[in-house]
């Protein structure tokens, strides 16, 4: 079993952080994992993406061109990558920020108003975690204890006060129906 996650959005939305969380969830679930960011001038205020592979087998290419799961947080990334999702794959779309919907019938699209949900719940800037929560729930990779352990690892000691809010955002995403 191999999950190939592609996460994309604007720099500053926490795309790389959400990717790191998914990679740690995979690691603590006993899988092989890799995480590869886009790097270069496009990261300064422009679009940003990140490839995360979680697999039972050693990973060859860490670069993902055709994801099994796509997580998108802006319209340019949605337009660019929605067509690349593998048949029977899934897309997790921040519907507050992404205009339009996909007409693909061979993939499952989840429209999560993550940015609006974050703002309404005092979790500004944590739409990425809400979407990651929904993704983790849908793929059923592992249990909540492992996910919580991964979140604890991802939050640096200096920002320990943010752990509770991030866990709240994660649960909000996991419990979202739609």
């Amino acid at each position, binding site marked *: 079993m191999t999950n190939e996650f592609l996460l994309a959005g604007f720099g500053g939305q926490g795309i790389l952080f959400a990717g790191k969380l998914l990679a740690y969830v995979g690691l603590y679930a006993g899988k092989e994992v890799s995480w*590869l960011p886009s790097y270069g001038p496009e990261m300064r205020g422009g679009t940003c993406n990140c490839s995360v592979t979680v697999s039972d087998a050693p990973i060859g290419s*860490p670069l993902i061109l055709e994801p099994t799961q796509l997580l998108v947080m802006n319209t340019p990334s949605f337009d660019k990558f929605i067509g690349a999702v593998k048949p029977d794959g899934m897309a997790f779309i921040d519907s507050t920020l992404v205009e339009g919907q996909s007409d693909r019938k061979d993939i499952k699209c989840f429209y999560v108003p993550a940015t609006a949900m974050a703002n309404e719940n005092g979790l500004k800037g944590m739409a990425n975690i809400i979407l990651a929560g929904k993704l983790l729930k849908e793929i059923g990779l592992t249990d909540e204890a492992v996910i919580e352990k991964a979140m604890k690892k991802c939050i640096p000691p200096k920002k320990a006060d943010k752990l509770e809010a991030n866990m709240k955002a994660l649960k909000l995403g996991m419990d979202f129906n739609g």
Partner: protein
Amino acid sequence: MAEKSLMKGNEALAEAALRAGCKCFFGYPITPQTEIAAYLSKRMPKVGGVFLQAESEVAAINMVYGCAGSGIRCMTSSSSPGISLKSEGISYIAGADLPCVIIDVMRGGPGLGGIQPSQADYYQITKGVGHGDYNIIVLAPSTVQEMADCVTKAFDLADKYRMPAVVLADGLLGQMMEPVAFDDAEIVMSDASNKPWAANGHKNARKHNIINSLYLQAPELERTIKERYERYAEIEKNEPVGVADYCDDADIVVVAYGSTARLAKSAVDEARKQGIKAGVFRPVTLYPFPKNELNAAVKNAKKVLVVEMSMGQMVDDVKLAINCSKPVDFFGRTGGVIPAPAEILAKIKEMGGNN
């Protein structure tokens, strides 16, 4: 071994350098290797080491020259255009028989090129980088854990043979995160003990040591070079490393190093699933090139395919190593484009690797 955590290849390499007793780092920022310098700028002061951002790549390599002469483990890192700037210093260090470690996290060239992953520095690095008759040790990791392991080995080999050793990586390995673990041993900074040749302070307790690469008498220069080549013969006998997978019954053996080797391995795994007899051979040491190991791996093969992120450089060494005893084909992407395993598989099939 401690618990595994996720680190970028650049960070894992930097941490491993500290743990190998690298006391001094001299560098200058350039994408995609800057995390090495950034990481060491935070860690070095905490473990009693020196981090110094030099005014240029040329200054950094000459600081390494001086530091290596004092017998202390030291390192510099850069990416392709920066390595070109260091070439003069590397030649001097080789000519002065000093151990040091140099990291090249390759990006696309020539010129400023681009910042995406590439393997187009193969000729430059494996042929010594600078001017003159000499070799340097070159190790090519293909995972983040190996980024760490190779730097440790590079320090040991550099000391053992008194010469520069390079870890040749690329932007993909530098930027990606994978699980990595370090042992729990305490960090001990290197000193000049066991290095009787070191030019350090001794209060006239012994005859002074001279470190130099200038020999104006031709026979004397020839003698020093020939002595060095006796050491290279030892290295070529003792140190080559190559890893073969599924090569015993393979019709087509794919040869690739570094991050390209893992892409080739994916392609070969898929080929095997489809009933195609393909294997993969990965040189881990690029100098010394694992000639005997490669010959053993391709013994039963009908054809050899070399895959690189360049227009084809290692392919020459593969042909030489097997003395052109088999047809050798090449597939590469360059300029920062990463070949997809599917493209490599298509090439294997085009070469007749059908079931």
